[in-house]
């Protein structure tokens, strides 16, 4: 069972390109549909928790599924299984890339890639802004956050910690009223 858990997540980790969100339907297909390890409704609850918790969403989901099935050893096996392919592939690329970096073709390709990558980070700002329900009253929050990090060198980790704390304080004040 532990071995099956490991190979299932290894396969998921090796064949999903496009980040953590792309992995979730594959995990669902393997764990719910094919293996029948977990029921659909329970899996959807797991995704909700994995998304609201900090950390890599695909890893959170693996830990959850593994823990549910085989306790802590299951959680370790599942998460290592889904991280291992990424780890190995990146190591291979990283050790080769230093040799190819100065190659004229590779250098020119990356001159084209770099502005594109920046655009790929701007796009989710727009998409997440819509799902986060940002309106004219709350628009200042992302703007001030971005400026603090970009211009004043404030740590993004500190911004997250402050946001969590402010949420608690707002609720405390409401309670007193």
């Amino acid at each position, binding site marked *: 069972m532990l071995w099956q858990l490991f190979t299932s997540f290894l396969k998921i980790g090796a064949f999903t390109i496009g980040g953590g969100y792309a992995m979730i339907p594959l995990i669902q297909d393997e764990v719910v549909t094919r293996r029948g390890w977990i029921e659909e409704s329970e899996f959807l609850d797991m995704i909700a928790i994995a998304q609201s918790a900090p950390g890599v969403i695909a890893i*959170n989901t693996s830990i959850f599924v593994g823990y549910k099935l085989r306790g802590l050893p299951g*959680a370790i096996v599942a998460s290592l299984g889904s991280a291992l392919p990424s780890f190995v592939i990146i*190591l291979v690329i*990283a050790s080769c890339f230093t040799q190819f970096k100065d190659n004229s073709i590779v250098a020119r390709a990356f001159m084209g890639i*770099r*502005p594109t*990558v920046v655009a790929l*980070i701007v796009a989710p700002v727009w998409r997440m802004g819509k799902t986060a329900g940002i309106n004219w009253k709350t628009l200042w929050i992302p703007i001030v*956050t971005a400026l603090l990090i970009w211009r004043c060198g404030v740590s993004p980790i500190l911004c997250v910690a402050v946001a969590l704390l402010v*949420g608690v304080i707002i609720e405390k004040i409401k309670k007193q009223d």
Partner: protein
Amino acid sequence: MLYLQLFISFFTIGLFGFGGGYAMLSMIQNEVVVKHAWIDVTTFTDIVAISQMTPGPIGINSATYCGYSAALNAGYGHGMAVLGSITATLALILPSFIIMLIFCKLYTRLSDNRYMTSSFTVLRPVVVGLIASAALLLMNSENFSTPDDTYRFGVSIALFGCALIASLRKVHPILLIVIAAIAGIVIF
């Protein structure tokens, strides 16, 4: 000492990394490029590109790559660089274990906890700001060149604009990176 710092940096990122891979990128960038200067900004941009094109979560991919490059840039050999990537990747995953096991037990109580709901309401727009800052920090002369180099600067802006429109119209990121690579080879 580098390994301890790598561990602390990526452990903290794992612990506060709300909002998925892109929000995490802004934290990784801040630790690795701004705070510790382990990696320069162009190399970091390349790491993000490679992390998007290879299988697996962007957070894991970039942590592995950053751990490797940080050790290599500090003058260690390949073997010690692999140790750097192991340190960064495990440190990123470790908080997930602790948090998920707690969440697992407390979820029904946490999901309607008023403090939790309130904190998440504040957190969501902040995460959008985090991702915006990651993009702003990468909009620099290293990635786009300067107006003095009119040709490269103009092409960079055009590529950025096209990619942004295509990405908002849900064209797959890998396809966009491949097209940009070909465009780069042909144009530059």
